């Protein structure tokens, strides 16, 4: 099924996706910091 979407709605949708990506990227950073605490340094 093809859904119609206005340009403003599309911008809001893409912004949501971008914010979700940013949040998960920050989560990845937090995971790296936590893993770094529990593993030996190189």
């Amino acid at each position, binding site marked *: 099924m093809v859904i119609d979407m206005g340009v403003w709605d599309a911008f809001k949708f893409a912004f949501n996706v971008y914010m979700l990506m940013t949040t998960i*990227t920050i989560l990845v950073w937090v995971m790296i910091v936590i893993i*770094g605490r529990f593993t030996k340094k*190189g």
Partner: protein
Amino acid sequence: MEQIINVFPGLVSFTQMPMEMAIARIVLIFMGFGMLYFGYKDVLEPLLMIPMGVGVCLVNAGILMMPDLIDPSKQKLGTMFLDSMVQTSDQHINAMQVYFLQPIYALTFSNGLIACMVFLGIGAITELDFFIGNPKLSLMLAIPAELGTFLTFPIAIWMGFNPREAASIATIGGADGPMVLFASLKLAKNLFVPISVVSYLYLSIVYSGYPFLIKALVPKRFRGIAMKEMTITKVSAEEKLAFSIVVGTVLSLLFPVAAPLFVSFFLGVIIRESKVSRYMFFADDIILTGSTLFLGFILGCLLSADVVVEPKMFKLLILGFIALFLSGVGGLLGGYAVCWLSRGKINPLVGIAGVSCVPSTAKVAHKCANEVNEEAFILPFAMGPNIAGVITTAIITACYVTKVQLL
């Protein structure tokens, strides 16, 4: 004379197609030569351009009238390479008896396996030290470098594409070929061929195109920052292994639809860090080399005249350019931000390396810095955002694929 011409069906086929298609065919044959030549001369990425150029040249030369597999009572213009229009399993089985590339296309392209194999190979050659050693800087630079992936979506909607097609096109901004392939296969199978071809064409031009953008937006005094005060933290294999398995598991848990890509990439990293030499040889020398060769060659074979004369192709060319241009601009803006935050210690060019195209954008950043200041050796610092860019592109692609399917 007519009898002599009829001996050569490839020549006759020019008279059996519309004029614009015949012209496009000739242009594409020359374009194939150009791709091969510039790949050979190292102006464009040779690993992709050489097989792709050969494919474009030969597929557009070898067109003949043959039975249509979808409707056997009809005849159509086609090649002996492959038919991307077959859909049912019966048609696939019949096509495999006729077209020599059909088995590879049907079993590795239409299910996204080729993208996963390339990703496995990329994982196996990825050095994570620069990224894990300085994750904050790397990820901070990778986020703005997704600007093209974000803004191309509404632009594509404005140009008349539906959300599924727009999301697939937007992923070109991530500058990661396997991701574009994966997203278009999941969301817009009807546009998979032109989107993938446009994406790989532009990605091969990144190496020669981004230096112009850099020179236009970054003054010489910033380009020459040597980053001598920065150091790279050494990271243990144990930490890289733990990172791969934990982050791979969490991302697969969040986005099961993109799990094949995450699994492939992190399996490649784990193979590298486990130092099992046989697997490393297999993943790098065999899987990555073989899949890159077939990826380039089959994409070239898919770039036939009928794809080029498709009305949406011109729009795709514009959108692909916009996506990569905006991502480059976003990356440089991120670079300026970290340069300012570090009080001029960080070269803003490392920002463009956040556009993931590994390792082309990192090499471009280094080359442009080195041209201005011979002491500027920024490649190791550029590799961090470069790898972070692969991860953010995988995340944003997974977000698009998951959220668009919910619309």
